[in-house]
């Protein structure tokens, strides 16, 4: 069991005042903070080992290549991929999903085909599919979310009928960033697989918060960002099944991804190089490896438990505020480490501005989930999202602050 109080010391950014109050950082679903060891890994890389990778034969280039490919192996292990060649480094979840949509989509989608999504998708798992649908003539279809406050999760009763023969690919989020819902990804993949449908999981919110095993989940693709899991910004990955990757055309073209270039034609390397054109973001990848070590040091089962306990506590205490509308699952077992809520008479922007006044960092708005918000009759919500360094005391500060804000606006 990690000592959760000691953990705060690992994160330099937490030890500051905001508006004269100690910072209470509850915006972890947007981006997580970085432990000292990750920041230092990055600086040390630039101070000692920095050189371009792959095409070099000198000492620094060999060290940089080893560190970069070591990070790939580390990430593969973090998600239990069978083969490190199944891990493609990208800028983050958004680029990973664009890569699948564009590359797999271009090779496999045509008019009449259907792309199945869910109503709770982040714009990053929605707009890329709109773009490839427009290009190929495929159409989109959505698994509905049940309940006036989206408390019912995905409508699994209609799923089998939605997974009709025209459906070629099914993309869904592991954890909703606006509702906190944990989706039954193993079941969703099994049902799709039984019909030969390719599966894509948006793992932005799960990767740093719970154990992730792509082979146990049995998905075809899994996309995630480093910056939401204590890694740095600018790096993330796409996991893909080797057989699917090897049959996909390149995404971007350039140095490093070709096996032969002529003026008029080229041949491609296999995965992962085929999908990593240009100088990869190797330094940030190395720091991502350090983030994997850090999180596994704490234990991802433990992190999941810690975050869920905080969310359950927050849910319970927030429920006492007059008029509050709490979104997402009521059952704590189905909820990840975040709580999303709305007040009838106070807008999320005002709530967030008042929280900031007390040093509390929240997020307010549609959380890149506009269509879902619209269905719920909301323009946005306020979201408190937790991570390893948050404490029950911070939840008390949050609730006290919200009570004050409500009083100010509603008398």
């Amino acid at each position, binding site marked *: 069991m990690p000592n959760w109080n000691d953990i705060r010391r690992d994160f330099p950014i937490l030890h500051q005042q905001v508006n004269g109050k100690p910072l209470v950082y509850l915006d972890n679903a947007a981006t997580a903070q970085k432990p000292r060891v990750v920041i230092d890994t990055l600086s040390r890389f630039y101070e000692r080992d920095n050189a371009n990778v792959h095409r070099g034969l000198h000492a620094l280039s060999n060290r940089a290549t080893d560190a970069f490919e070591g990070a790939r192996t580390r990430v593969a292990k973090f998600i239990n991929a069978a083969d490190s060649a199944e891990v493609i480094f990208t800028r983050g979840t958004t680029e990973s999903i664009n890569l699948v949509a564009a590359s797999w989509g271009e090779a496999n989608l045509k008019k009449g085909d259907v792309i199945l999504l869910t109503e709770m998708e982040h714009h990053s798992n929605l707009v890329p599919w709109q773009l490839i649908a427009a290009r190929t003539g495929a159409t989109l279809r959505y698994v509905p979310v049940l309940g006036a406050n989206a408390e019912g999760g995905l409508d699994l009763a209609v799923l089998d009928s939605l997974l009709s023969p025209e459906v070629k690919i099914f993309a869904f989020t592991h954890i909703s960033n606006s509702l906190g819902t944990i989706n039954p990804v193993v079941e969703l993949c099994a049902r799709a697989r039984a019909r030969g449908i390719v599966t894509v999981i948006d793992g932005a919110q799960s990767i740093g918060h719970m154990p992730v095993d792509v082979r146990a989940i049995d998905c075809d693709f899994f996309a995630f960002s480093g910056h939401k899991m204590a890694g740095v910004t600018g790096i993330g990955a796409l996991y893909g099944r080797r057989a699917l990757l090897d049959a996909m055309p390149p995404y971007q073209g350039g140095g490093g991804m070709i096996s032969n270039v002529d003026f008029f034609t080229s041949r491609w390397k296999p995965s992962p190089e085929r999908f990593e054109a240009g100088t990869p973001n190797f330094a940030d990848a190395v720091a991502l490896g350090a983030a994997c070590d850090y999180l596994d040091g704490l234990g991802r089962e433990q992190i999941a438990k810690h975050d869920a306990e905080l969310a359950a506590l927050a849910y319970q205490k927030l429920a006492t505020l007059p008029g509050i509308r709490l979104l997402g699952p009521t059952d704590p077992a189905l909820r990840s480490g975040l709580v999303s809520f709305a007040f009838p008479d106070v807008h999320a922007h005002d709530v967030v501005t008042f929280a900031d006044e007390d040093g509390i960092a929240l997020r307010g708005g549609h959380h890149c989930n506009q269509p879902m*918000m619209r269905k719920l009759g909301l323009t946005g919500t306020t979201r408190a999202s937790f991570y390893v360094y948050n404490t029950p005391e911070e939840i008390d500060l949050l609730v006290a602050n919200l009570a004050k804000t409500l009083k100010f606006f509603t008398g």
Partner: protein
Amino acid sequence: MSADLSELYQQVILDHNKRPRNRGRLPAANRVAHGDNPSCGDQCSVYLRMDGDRIGDISFDGSGCAISQASASLMTTLLKGRSSAEAAELYKNFHEIVTTGKEPEEISDIAAFAGVHAFPARIKCATLGWHAAIEALKGGPNVTTESHTD
């Protein structure tokens, strides 16, 4: 509450937010424009009944934070009866006040919005309704506050 925050949420603003003026769809409107704030999903539609070049009647509709609602509400009270040129001039003043915190030259409720300048992220909230009104005066249908140079 800090000085900045009480400057931001002045009585005038809270009052317009609670009891918005000229809210709802104007049945006799002959111009309408719609404003979006894509960062947060806030929206504001402005309806105009133009009598020649004058704003004969005006209303707004939509949803948003206290700042955006109060600003749109106050705006409707200021623009009624004005010409497009006068409206543009008023918006220029308002924009200067919310971006610099400078007091207006004449005594006006607009002064209540001077506190916005200390919260740069909220300037877009304060200008949403005005953007829609100016767009409606130009005859355009849609406007977003997200233009990068805003």
